[in-house]
């Protein structure tokens, strides 16, 4: 299923959207009360000055210009009055604009920043199963484009509020002049409202589709760039470009669709106030002829309308932004409301001596990654976690006891659940059933941060941060360089690190690009060692390290592992033989456990696995011997 064909949740059309939009706006205003207030004050100043400009021109024309022209001479004082009155209004106007626009943008960007913080906190807080259901590219788009969409409305908002103020002032004036004429003018507003309702109705589904496609474009780009080397190695640049082209074109069509709707709406919104002005003129003239009004009254009302015509568009801008804002906010909110985070207790774990890890009757099944979530869609986020049938349980009723101070090896064929078990032991995931404890304390009952403080995992696939070697080892912990070097030495990484320009300060680059797989693994090992964990879990963590160095590392670990319990996933005989106890897994279940010799004697699967190379070598030797005489 390609990204673009996935169903997109469409919200029920409006007027709900308008109501939700106002709620989003209100949420934002509450959070940025002070700054927003400044923006509104600025906007009111601006509104007053805009109406005031017309008044000021009228005032100086009547009191200075006309008398001067009629008299045929001017005074310096008179000219100064003209200039200063207009200038004063201008200064008020400019002050208003600066306050309004600067404060509005600060409020908007503050909101964006604050929601980015919240969303990324969720990313870090939500469990791995949630991450599996949400493509990285979509999450990136959520943290940027969706949040931007949600709060962009704050740019035109204060101006629109100023316009409302202006409408109130002008409306009051109009009513004072002639309520009947004012009423005609006010018919404009139901018109604007109706036009807007129709607009929202057409706009909401289109904007939803566009935001989802935006996320999908980011998703395809993210995945494709991550696969950069593979794409190149297989010469699939063209196919990938076509795949990206498909979502890009869908996004293009979707945005054109949005544009078409907006393209209708904007001229209509602009035309309505002008039609109002014309109506006032026509009706006003009739009333003047019938003697109900003076010509000057009509002119005044018509003039009030004409100065409103342009600013009223700001209302249109806000209304036009609302669907985007609602959809963006909905997508953001669905992340903020996502449940399924790990629950933590108040307990603590001991900090000294080797730890004992006990997993009792644990089972775990992965969620179906085919069931991916669409952010902000109608179905609740939690529904995503339903497990699909695509994979048998990764771990079934496994009991694993790793006594304090011992080394236990997990052995089993590829895909037998070893990595899943290591994740359970360190509570990277919680079991579906059964319990996991350290030193007899259930991991679910301890505080956040306790398990990582005590137990450390070196995963099969290393992850390097775009940082210096030192930071990749310490991960921000306050450790002296001497400890870092000690850890690097134990991981046999001191040699190549000291040869790098800058040594500990050498920046590795995202994903550790220029290091070999074995070098990355050794830095990852040092990262674990430097923390002196009470439980060290090595998940085939030396697979890319050559055998001699691996021996060195394991030897070094043994020396320095006083007070450390080790659980190691391994294939290599030498590694296995370092273990006091071996647990053999097949298809998510413990098939047998005991010492190496015991298992060799009674477990065929184990024997087949660990002796595969030896048998292979023997067979080759035999074949070679057979072939020898014929040559």
């Amino acid at each position: 299923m390609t990204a673009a064909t996935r169903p997109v949740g469409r919200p029920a059309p409006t007027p709900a959207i308008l109501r939700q939009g106002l709620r989003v706006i209100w949420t934002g205003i509450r959070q940025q009360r002070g700054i927003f207030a400044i923006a509104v004050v600025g906007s009111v100043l601006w509104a007053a000055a805009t109406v005031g400009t017309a008044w000021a021109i009228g005032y100086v024309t009547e009191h200075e210009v006309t008398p001067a022209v009629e008299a045929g001479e001017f005074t310096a004082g008179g000219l100064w009055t003209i200039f200063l009155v207009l200038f004063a209004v201008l200064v008020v106007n400019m002050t208003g604009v600066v306050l309004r626009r600067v404060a509005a943008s600060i409020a908007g960007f503050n909101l964006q920043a604050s929601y980015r913080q919240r969303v990324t906190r969720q990313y870090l807080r939500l469990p791995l199963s949630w991450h599996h259901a949400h493509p990285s590219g979509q999450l990136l788009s959520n943290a940027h484009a969706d949040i931007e969409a949600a709060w962009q409305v704050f740019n035109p908002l204060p101006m629109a509020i100023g316009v409302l103020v202006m409408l109130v002032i002008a409306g009051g004036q109009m009513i004072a002049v002639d309520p009947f004429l004012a009423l005609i003018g006010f018919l404009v507003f139901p018109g604007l409202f109706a036009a807007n309702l129709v607009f929202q109705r057409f706009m909401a589904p289109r904007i939803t589709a566009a935001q989802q496609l935006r996320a999908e474009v980011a998703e395809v780009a993210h995945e494709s760039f991550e696969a950069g080397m593979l794409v190149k190695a297989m010469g699939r640049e063209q196919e990938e470009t076509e795949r990206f082209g498909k979502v890009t074109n869908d996004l293009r069509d979707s945005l054109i669709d949005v544009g078409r709707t907006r393209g209708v709406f904007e001229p209509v919104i602009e035309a309505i106030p002008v039609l109002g002005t014309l109506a006032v003129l026509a009706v006003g003239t009739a009333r003047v002829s019938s003697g109900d009004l003076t010509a000057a009254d009509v002119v005044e009302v018509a003039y009030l309308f004409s100065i409103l015509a342009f600013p009223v568009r700001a209302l249109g801008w806000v209304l036009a932004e609302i669907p985007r804002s609602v959809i963006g906010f909905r997508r953001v909110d669905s992340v903020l409301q996502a449940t399924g985070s790990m629950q933590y207790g108040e307990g603590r774990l001991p900090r000294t001596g080797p730890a004992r890890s006990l997993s009792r009757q644990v089972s775990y099944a992965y969620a179906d990654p085919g069931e991916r979530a669409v952010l902000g869609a109608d179905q609740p986020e939690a529904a995503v976690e339903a497990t699909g049938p695509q994979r048998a349980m990764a771990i079934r009723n496994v009991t694993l006891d790793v006594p304090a101070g011992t080394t236990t090896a997990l052995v089993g064929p590829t895909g037998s659940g070893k990595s899943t078990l290591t994740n359970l032991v360190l509570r990277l995931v919680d079991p579906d059933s059964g319990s996991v404890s350290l030193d007899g304390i259930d991991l679910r009952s301890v505080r956040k941060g306790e398990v990582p403080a005590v137990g450390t995992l070196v995963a099969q696939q290393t992850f390097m941060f775009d940082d210096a070697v030192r930071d990749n080892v310490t991960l921000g912990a306050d450790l002296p360089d001497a400890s870092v070097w000690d850890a690097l030495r134990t991981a046999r990484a001191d040699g190549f690190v000291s040869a790098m320009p800058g040594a500990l300060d050498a920046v590795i680059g995202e994903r550790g690009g220029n290091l070999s797989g074995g070098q990355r693994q050794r830095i990852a090992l040092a990262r674990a060692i430097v923390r002196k964990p009470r439980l060290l879990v090595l998940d085939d963590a030396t697979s890319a390290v050559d055998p001699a160095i691996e021996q060195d590392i394991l030897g070094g670990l043994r020396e320095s592992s006083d007070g450390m319990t080790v659980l190691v996933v391994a294939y290599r005989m030498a590694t296995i033989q370092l273990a006091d106890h071996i647990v053999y897994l097949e298809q998510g279940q413990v098939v047998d456990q005991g010492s190496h010799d015991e298992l060799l004697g009674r477990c065929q699967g184990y024997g087949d696995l660990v002796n595969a190379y030896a048998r292979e070598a023997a067979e080759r030797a035999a074949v070679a011997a057979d072939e020898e005489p014929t040559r």
Partner: protein
Amino acid sequence: MSTATRTTAPDDERGAASSEIGGSHDLSTWETLKRGFALSPELLKGLWVTVLLALFATIGKVLIPFVVQQATDHGILAEGGPDVGFVVTAVLIAGGAIIFTSIAQYAVNIRLFRAAESGLATLRLKAFRHIHDLSVLTQSTERRGALVARVTNDVDTISMFVQFGGIMLLVSTAQVLVATILMAVYSPILAGVVYLCVVPLVVLITKFQPMLARAYGAVRVRVGDLLGAVSESIVGAVTIRAYGVEDRTQGRIDAAIENHRVAAIRAQIRSVMAFVSGQAFGGITTAIVLVVGTVLATDGRMTLGQLLAFLFLVNLFTQPVQQATEIFNELQNAVAGWRRVIGVIDTPADVSDPGEGGLRLPRGPITVDFEGVSFAYPGGDRVLQDVDLTFDPQSRIAIVGETGSGKTTLAKLLTRLMDPSEGRVLIDGVDLRDVAFDSLRRRIIMVPQEGFLFDQSLLENIRFGRPDAADEDIELAMTELGLDAWLATLPLGLATQVGQRGESLSAGERQLVAIARAYLADPDLLVLDEATSAVDPATEVRIQRALEGLTRGRTSVAIAHRLSTAEAADVVVVVDKGRIVEVGHHAELVGAGGVYTRMHASWAAQQR
């Protein structure tokens, strides 16, 4: 002998001259615009029709206030009472003008949206394609998240300007011209005054432009950083949780968020300053015109009515000028986005397809030669030195050596993911740099240690190796590789979804898929770089046999730590500190007392 690299870099600097993705800061605004429009020809397609329509719409917009003013002056305020007939006529004319204007405006909007989105889609696609054409080394100079920003948010930044800004600039210019002519007709002196007032604004705006450009440029960079930081927190989710470093990661993200916020606000403040100076110009111009006009009117050089009419024209003039300051802000924002996208597109692809002149080599047994090959990463020491090697057709080669000795570099040079800094790599006697990519990638395929999987089914992931393969071909390949037993453990078999980056599978399983994928592609030369390092020994042996059975017709190069691979190879190449120290059959080398002897002893000790 005409590859792009050769023309840009002398032979001995090739490879070392790997490029970094640039920001194209050196392009001026004008050059950026020119490049931008050239990259998206859709933006200019049919533009003159749009401009014409926009001019019509503008005429309507100017006409309406004019008609309203006429209706007021000559209708309602007509001497001897309101002239109802005149007002009705005027209202009807204005009403017609509104309908006409609205339709024209609608047509303009649609045309602009279509042109803008089509043009930007093309730009996205070009940038995307070019990123894939960049060498692995160049790609790695920027974080993935930031690369994504270049084809998403950076492009989005341009859209506002190309949708509205550009056309408004043209229309505003037209309106300024019309207003200028009218003002000059009414009063050349006052027109001169207005133009004198424009001068300081032009000076100010010119000064603001580079400041704005810098500010918006900084915002784009911050967005890239932000997405890079967020991306790290998502992709590194397991490591972050395993080490409990959520707070630290959050700290870094927060810093990126804050930097972006500050940069965005700074850019906004600068744009407000630019806008306000436009506003000041409008207000001050009106005030000065009124003052000077008063003086002229007292002299009898113009009437009061003419003065008030002139104020209307001043408004017609200053309004588009003010709008232009706003558009210039948007322009600089767009240029900042454009520069980043152009920066990618203009980054030279240092390992590039020879293009039309590229050779297409016939399929079949393949010979490989390394001639005096050396390689250094940009700014680094040599990691490979003076490599001379020949791989015979249909032979099985094992490359062994310590981690970091240069084995993977060798593999990357062999598959032309990178070009050597010195010397050359030849297949069938032809320099790799002269072979067309599509031919090269058919013949040589590498399976890296950490093979990437797409968020699709197993079937689709394997089919990536040969897009035209039928389901049966893929099933057959799995059987031939002896992977059917593993497949049987998955209830959905080949339909199993592997999750993002294949995370639903274990590392070993991902390697199985990567091998099946390469196997299906059926290259003449298969390069396996630790491709089975995470697979259990029994499965590895099974795969190795399967590959061997089928490698009879092809050349295979395997990099492996498990020396079982070397024992089975025809030729073992031993790499040590970037040099080839031994070449020969396992049987010869194992007793030779060299590096290999030592390595093998430690391996054998492990197997015991």
